[in-house]
């Protein structure tokens, strides 16, 4: 039963990626050999892969409903899908560059909810934004700064301030670090602009 629920949840999330972004998703339920050799091997397994984005997560979902499983998987891969596709997914029907956020019940925005499996839209980032937080994912502490010289990715560990106050559109300053994440450069330090 848990395996069946996990598969249904993974299928819901896969549909949201395939419909809105057009990328094929692979779901493999084979328990990896190295885990089968454990003293207490997992009872079931979901390997969720988006080859075009080099996204892979393997786990034993523990949530009790397909929607819950989709949530569990979505919060693990949301940042990677955003950073590697360069798009806003799922797009908020009300507009803006903050994607809808995964919850137990579906993708939630300020003014509504789209159940898992029913997402149809992603959008390109607004090129007019500059010097502000483009999006922030509170469930994984990942964010993107909009910049005319190229967007910059950051996470909780680079943020100098109270991350609970981070909101899309908030002005910030940043320093560039080595390396990158997906299509973006990484910040070594991000601070809110003092009013």
């Amino acid at each position, binding site marked *: 039963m848990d395996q069946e629920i996990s598969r249904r949840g993974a299928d819901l999330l896969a549909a949201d990626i395939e419909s809105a972004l057009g990328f094929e998703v692979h779901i493999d339920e084979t328990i990896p050999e*190295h885990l089968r050799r454990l003293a207490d091997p997992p009872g079931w397994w979901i390997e969720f892969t988006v080859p075009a984005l*080099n996204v892979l997560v*393997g*786990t034993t979902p523990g949530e*009790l409903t397909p929607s819950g499983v989709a949530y569990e998987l979505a919060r693990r891969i949301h940042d990677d899908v955003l950073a590697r596709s360069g798009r806003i997914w799922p797009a908020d029907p009300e507009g803006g560059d903050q994607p809808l956020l995964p919850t137990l019940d579906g993708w939630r925005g300020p003014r509504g909810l789209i159940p898992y499996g029913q997402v149809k839209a992603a959008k390109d980032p607004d090129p007019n934004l500059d010097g502000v937080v483009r999006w922030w994912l*509170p469930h*994984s*502490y990942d964010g993107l700064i909009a910049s005319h010289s190229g967007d910059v990715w950051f996470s909780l*560990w680079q943020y100098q301030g109270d991350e609970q106050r981070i909101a899309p559109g908030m002005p910030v300053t940043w320093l560039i670090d080595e390396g990158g994440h997906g299509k973006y450069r990484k910040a070594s330090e991000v601070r809110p602009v003092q009013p």
Partner: protein
Amino acid sequence: MKVCSDPSASLTRRVGRTLLFAVTLTSASVLAAGTAQASYQLCTNYRVTTHWGRVEVDTRPADGDPIGGIAWAMFINNIADIPGRYDYQILVDGRPIFTDTIQKDDNLHITIPRYRSGRYVYESGDEIQVIASHAAGKVLYVTPINRCTVPYTAG
């Protein structure tokens, strides 16, 4: 294969088993020795530094719970070695609650929510440990022991 583990960290029987899980992925061996700590630090601004990088752990509020989640991150100094597959287990009081694999192009950072499947998966006073492994070419990175205790109040 070169194995990057923490030579100063202790290797209990329980952790040894789990390290073995990680290491069997790449058919390498791990050597570790040292003295066990009697008690663990709080998971509040907790940092473990090793010769190849560091692990950082902190509690964060979520959904009205002042300790709603634990933010856990592993940083490898050699940025060329960061991309690739990471295998990790999250243990609460020595019991695995998650066994996951993920493909990263940036450093591995995870959120450990306290509330899952309609219940709390850890409580204040519980011991949290994440054991992660990541192969980069011929180098196998294994996290140093990073046990910490969930605090009773947010830091």
